[in-house]
Every structure is written in C-alpha cells, then in structure tokens.
C-alpha cells in the first residue's frame, strides 16, 4: 500500500507505522468494536488489551468513574488468559488495515516471558507492549514498573523470547520515572510508552464509600496531560529509543506538545470515548500542520521543545 502521507510515517524499532497514532491498550478493544464507524486504515496501530498467563475475571463493579477532565478506571486486566486468547481471539485480528500490537501483563517475571513468547510467535502480532504498570491489580502488577531493576528483569526475560519490537509501558506512579526508563532501554526495550494512568480515588459522599469496586483506580484523560508531557520531556533527555507519548491527547495542540516534548508517536485512549473520530481527525490535522509550516516530516519536530534554563542563571550572574 502506498502511504498517501509519508510525512507522518514513523518507526518504533522494527515496527513501521503509516501514521504516528496508536490506540491505547485497554481503550480500543480489538478494534472490531470501532471498525463499523472508524476507518482503521487511518490509524497507525491498535495496542490490544493486555493478556495474562491465566484467565482473569477482572475487578468488581463499578469500574469507571467520571472525574473532572478525565476518568478513573479499575478494570483489573479482565482477559481470558493466553491459551484461550490464542485459540479463540487472535485469528480475528488478521487482515486489519492497521498494525496490531499485543499487550501482556504478568505477576511473575516468568509470566511475561511465557506469554511474550507465545504471543509474539503469532503473525497477527507485529510488536509487543509490556504492561509493567497496571495500577489496578493488587500490588504485583505495578511492582515491576515501579522498580527499575525489576523492570529490567522483565524486559530482559521478554527480550530473550522475541525479535519483534518491544514497547515498555511505564508507570507515572514512581519517584523517578527516568531511572525506570533508562533501565528499560538498557535491558533491550525498543520503545517506551509514557505514561500509564495515574493512581487515584473518588469517594461517594452520599454512601461514604469509595466509588470504585476496586477502591483505587487509574486516572486518564486531559487531567493527566501535563504529567505525561513532563515525563516524556525528561525521559527523552536520557534515552535514545523512541517514545510513544500518551495521556489525555484530544486535539492537534495536545498531540504537538507530545512530539515537541520528545515523543516519536502518540497514543490515544480516553479521547476515543468522547468522539471516535478523533484519531482520524488528528492525522489529518497533523498533516495539514506540517504542510502549513513547510515541515517535511513529523520526525523533524520530535523533541524540539528542549531548551536550557539559561535566563535564570544569567540573571543570577548579572546580580552578582
């Protein structure tokens, strides 16, 4: 297929995307849910919902709460487990007009290696995202993403099973996300997804009870965008692998912020819940923006916001 908009093509490791837009894991199902009214050939890739070694029922209800400029979710990695998934789900993804990225989560390092090997072996899957940062499963899930050394071990274990592109999705619920990013790169990650949801909670003041069945959840949407932009900006300064920026992207300006902060691609999640036309609109608007500014490729603007804090030092000097 000839890409009508080569200026938007990007690469994440070996994964070549016609458009720099990924649909965030857990937000887009398998794509078939949106296929009746979205032109999937106009998006870069769908990141599938995370799959684990064993089936998981997921969290008790309610699982969603609307919050200012976003929402809390606590789905709890509901999925049928890798065996059932391979047998009954995956064949449906063949022939999608966009790339398919599998996502895996686990509770032991061995889980990641096992599921990664099984999933990456399938032709339908062109890359793997390692979800080491789900905030909604009791402790273990996010433990990996919160510890640079554990993250490294997960990435190494998965890396040993496949040559396909490995994207590591990082948690913002850490003191030093840059340290985790650095370790992920050193351990063989091809790209980083920045960021997963931010832990949060809402309480029903009528019933005096937490509003989520899981008590805590992950915050997404525009509410977390500045947190995500900062994480991308800081990580971009220390890693050389591409970053998939994500967190509350809805508009062209939002998307540009992430590219300028250092993201090679962007991921759209919660915005699909507001208007499923947003990904397609963003691609058109990005193309128009590049044309208007006479920029040959989206890659030319990646990281262009990086500046030194020079003026403050100069003032200090002047005063001295």
């Amino acid at each position, binding site marked *: 297929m000839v890409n009508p908009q080569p200026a938007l093509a990007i690469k994440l490791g070996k994964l070549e995307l016609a458009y720099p837009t990924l649909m965030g894991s857990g*937000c887009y199902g398998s794509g078939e*849910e949106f296929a009746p009214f979205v032109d999937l050939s106009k998006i870069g890739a769908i990141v599938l*919902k995370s799959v684990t070694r064993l*089936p998981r029922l997921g969290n008790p209800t309610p699982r*969603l709460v609307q919050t200012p*400029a976003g929402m809390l979710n606590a789905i709890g990695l509901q999925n*049928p487990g890798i065996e059932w998934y391979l047998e*009954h789900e995956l064949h449906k993804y063949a022939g999608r007009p966009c790339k398919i990225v599998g996502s895996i989560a686990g509770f032991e390092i061995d889980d990641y290696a096992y599921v990664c090997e099984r999933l990456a072996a399938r032709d339908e899957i062109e890359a793997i995202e390692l979800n080491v940062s789900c905030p909604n499963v009791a402790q273990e899930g996010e433990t990996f993403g919160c510890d640079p050394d554990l993250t490294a071990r997960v990435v190494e274990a998965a890396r040993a099973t496949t040559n396909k592109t490995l994207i590591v999705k990082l948690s913002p619920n850490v003191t030093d996300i840059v340290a985790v990013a650095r370790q992920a790169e050193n351990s063989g990650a091809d790209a980083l997804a920045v960021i997963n949801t931010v832990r949060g909670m809402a309480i029903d003041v009528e019933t005096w009870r937490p509003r989520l069945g899981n008590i805590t959840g992950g915050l997404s949407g525009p509410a977390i965008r500045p947190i995500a932009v900062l994480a991308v900006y800081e990580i971009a300064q220390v890693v050389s692998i591409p970053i998939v920026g994500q967190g509350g992207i809805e508009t062209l300006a939002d998307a540009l912020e992430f590219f300028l902060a250092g993201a090679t691609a962007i991921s759209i999640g919660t915005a699909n*819940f507001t208007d499923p036309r947003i990904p397609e609109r963003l691609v058109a608007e990005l193309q128009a923006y590049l044309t208007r500014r006479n920029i040959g490729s989206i890659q030319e603007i990646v990281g262009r916001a990086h500046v030194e804090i020079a003026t403050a030092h100069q003032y200090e000097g002047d005063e001295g």
Partner: protein
Amino acid sequence: MIGMTMLDLRPRVAATTILERRELADGVILLTLHAPELADATQPGQYLMAIPPSGEAAATALAVYEAEGKRASILFFVTGKRTRELANLACGDQLDVVGPLGNGFDCSGDADDVAIVAGGVGIASVWLCARELLRRGAHVRLFYGARTAELLVETQRFADAGCELVLATDDGTRGERGFVTDALVGARKPEAIYACGPSPMLRRVGEIANGFGVRAQLSLEETFGCGVGGCWGCVVPLTNASAQAPNFPPAERGGSDVVYARICKEGPVFWAHELRW
C-alpha cells in the same frame, strides 16, 4: 430475511439536527433528531452515544426513545454536566451521535399478555418495545413508577397506543404510593416481562419474574466508557453458560462459571435468570 433488502444495522457516526426540544417536566428533556439512518436501523432497547458538542469528555449513552421515519428521539433527565449540555441544545443545533448500539429487547415470541416495567428515565428504553409488542397483537401492561407525579412523563402516549397503565409514585401523588414493583407482585401473572430502570428495581423485577415462573428481559444502566465494547468498564456478572456471555474459558478450562459481560456490548438487555448480580 432471505430475498428481502437487508437494512444496514451497523452503528455509524451520524450528524443529526435537533428538530424539536420539549421539557416534559422540570429537568426532563425530549430531543427529536433528524436522523434517518439511525431511525431506520434502531431496534427496541438500543441506545446511542451522544458526542458532546463542547468536545469535553465523555460521550453520553442514551436510549433511543422513538424511531419513526426520518426521526429519532432521546428522552433524558438532567443529572449532571453532560446531560445539561445536551439539554441546552436548541432547534437547528447539530448533535453528532454514534448508534444504534447494543443488543436490545427481543420482542418476538408468542406471549399474549406481557408486562413492561419502567422506573424513572427507564421509560425512554421501552417505548419502541411497547410499540413492537402491540404491533404483533400482545396485550401490554405498563407498570411505570417515578418519584413524583410530574416525573411520570409520556403516559398519554403509551395509553393512546393501547397499553394498560399501572402507575406508582414514591410520594403517592399519582397512582399507587410506593414502588412500581409492589404493584407488579400483586398483579395478574404475565407471560413475559420487559424492564428498564434503576438497578434495585431491576433486581426486584428479576425476583418477581422468578416467582411467577416467567422470563424477564432487563435493560441495565451503568457508567459507560467507550460505549462500544472496547474498554470493559461497564460490566455485570453473568453466567458463563449464557448465549450473551463474552468469550471466556469455562471453569473446566481454567476460567469461571460467572463472567463479566459488557452492558454496552453484550447488553444492555439481559435475561434476568442469567444475571449473577
């Protein structure tokens, strides 16, 4: 359906125009939309996602109330920011929607004496169902409850269409005082039950149907994320043996006898006896 022209029933994004706006009661809004494809494709009990004109998160799931000719309508209570935004739309304004969505009521079958139970804004989900049941010649009793008389909206429409009305209000200002399910318990046993309303009402309808020994179809409500089955945020426990159960291994294959089904995708209408809530 072989040999017939198949309607295109797939959901789509449609730009609709507000043709009429009526405030049926304080905070109860009826918006009639010019939406030919939606009106054509909508089955009883289906819903749409209204894309917020402001673009502010997130879309709102609303039952399609009427669908006739080129017109479809939505009937909703103003309960928060998003429904207030919709309530502020005026004639001529554009409203983009995704729909029709979900698995609605199965109105086929040979039950001659059916009961429809509606609580509050649940009335919006049952008009098309009532119309379909009346069309095929069933006797329809509408058990309809609300907090107070003013909020029992559109009763005349159902009566004019041929429904027998049994009304109830919490404060006794119209019909029986108390829950509409109390009226259902003491009523003549129907052959089938259809219901939409708040969860406690639906649970009770399920119990009553069980007591009667009849099957009930319940239209559930929950906070939706994507509204199309992509996020698994709006779920309800369902027996894994249900034809509506999502793809999940059974207990003997390491899965479970009960699975969470998506209200937006597998539902919003479920068989009462298959729910495990």
